């Protein structure tokens, strides 16, 4: 694992946390929220390495703070946006995006070895395991929300929200978060050897047996 240089120090990172919030725990949460926005910014802007560019942006901000620069913007998010935009432009100059072609698309497709389940089959198996780890009513709600037939989707989702006593937007947000956790669960499951099941926050407690 490479340590990113560029004059970055732990003091810079600590100073950044302090600037985000004097309370360290809230600063940690604010940092996570900013990091998530940056990651999606680079993704939505088509960067090929959004995580690296996010780290680069944070490195740069921390270096500046360590060098004595102040974040004057009332909302640190605005400052981060400015730096992230510059990092993105520099990355475009370094690596102009190649035009999309079939070869690039096909790079993501792998043929399974003979006798081995395909990636799609493994993914479906992992998804089922992750759904099984949810409370049954929650899993049923999720699958009902995403099924295609049975009346109009909008009407059905509005009815689901009514049964739960929440607005349609609140329902969408909650299911979005649940979907995100399922995606992470499936990702972890696919990264593990096939003999192991899913793990992560959807399972029970960790700890020594």
């Amino acid at each position: 694992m490479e340590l990113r240089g560029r004059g970055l120090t732990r003091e810079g990172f600590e100073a950044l946390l302090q600037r985000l919030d004097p309370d360290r725990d809230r600063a940690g949460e604010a940092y996570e929220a900013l990091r998530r926005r940056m990651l999606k910014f680079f993704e939505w802007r088509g960067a090929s390495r959004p995580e690296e560019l996010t780290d680069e942006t944070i490195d740069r901000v921390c270096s500046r703070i360590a060098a004595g620069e102040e974040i004057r913007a009332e909302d640190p998010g605005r400052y981060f946006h400015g730096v992230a935009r510059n990092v993105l432009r520099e990355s475009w100059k370094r690596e102009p995006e190649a035009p999309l072609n079939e070869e690039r698309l096909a790079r993501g497709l792998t043929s399974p070895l003979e006798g081995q389940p395909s990636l799609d089959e493994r993914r479906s198996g992992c998804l089922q395991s992750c759904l099984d780890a949810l409370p049954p009513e929650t899993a049923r709600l999720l699958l009902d929300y995403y099924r295609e037939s049975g009346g109009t989707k909008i009407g059905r989702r509005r009815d689901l929200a009514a049964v739960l006593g929440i607005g349609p937007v609140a329902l969408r947000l909650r299911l979005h978060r649940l979907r995100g956790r399922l995606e992470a669960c499936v990702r972890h499951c696919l990264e593990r050897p096939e003999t192991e099941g899913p793990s992560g926050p959807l399972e029970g407690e960790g700890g020594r047996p």
Partner: protein
Amino acid sequence: MRSYLLGALPPDEAEKLEEAYFEGTPVFEELLLAEDDLIDAYVAGRLSSDEHRAFEAAFLSAPRRRERVDFARALRRAASSWETAARPPGARLAPLAAAAAIAAVLAAGAWAVRRQSDLGADLSRTRAELQALQSDVRGLQERGARLAQELSMAARPVAGVVTWILSPALSRGPSAARSLSLPPGAEWVRLRLPLERAGDGVFEVEIQTPEGRVVTSQRGLTAATSAGVPAIEAMVPARALATGTYVALLRRGKGEEVASFPLRVVAGP
């Protein structure tokens, strides 16, 4: 928002949108929802040909985004399989339709007009059906309340995960411990244990009481660098950390202790 996600928004409008979501407005959540909808529309084949082309250019060339598309396909298949398995033919009225049916019957109060000798039998039959439907509605209301609670617990937002960045002990002893509070509703604690230097290998984090009792541990961890600081991150269940003093031991490989991080858990606000 769909234009932004497909990379089709003019630059100045894209920049305004980005300013809004970097500043923590609800625009960010709206974009996340719009992205879900866009991916679902693609896998369902509901995009126009121009949108389809733009989507593939934006989403299929990046590994993480392609993973999201593959997940959406798997979810759609799972939902379709569930529907086929869970709804036998001849099932009674769908629950929500039953609620609407009761409302319609009670509001209209209309029954079929029959000859007097048939009305009594019809009335009895209808009363029995109404009672059954009313029972269904009560069951639905209870189910709705239960679902809302389960969904709230299962889909807790980021606030349900608390991040604690620990500092290594300069000297052993309770005075070195950081005080950390668990807010109500916290389910998981993400412990970030900074390392002096990055290194390869697999690490273990063990949370112990001062007496040496292990309360929880996590193995198989590797170092990740964030903001140039290498660290180990461990997710521990909040319920394992009652108020009290602990030490988080960081070990590498076959038990070599790398660092210790004292912490004190205090009651939340």
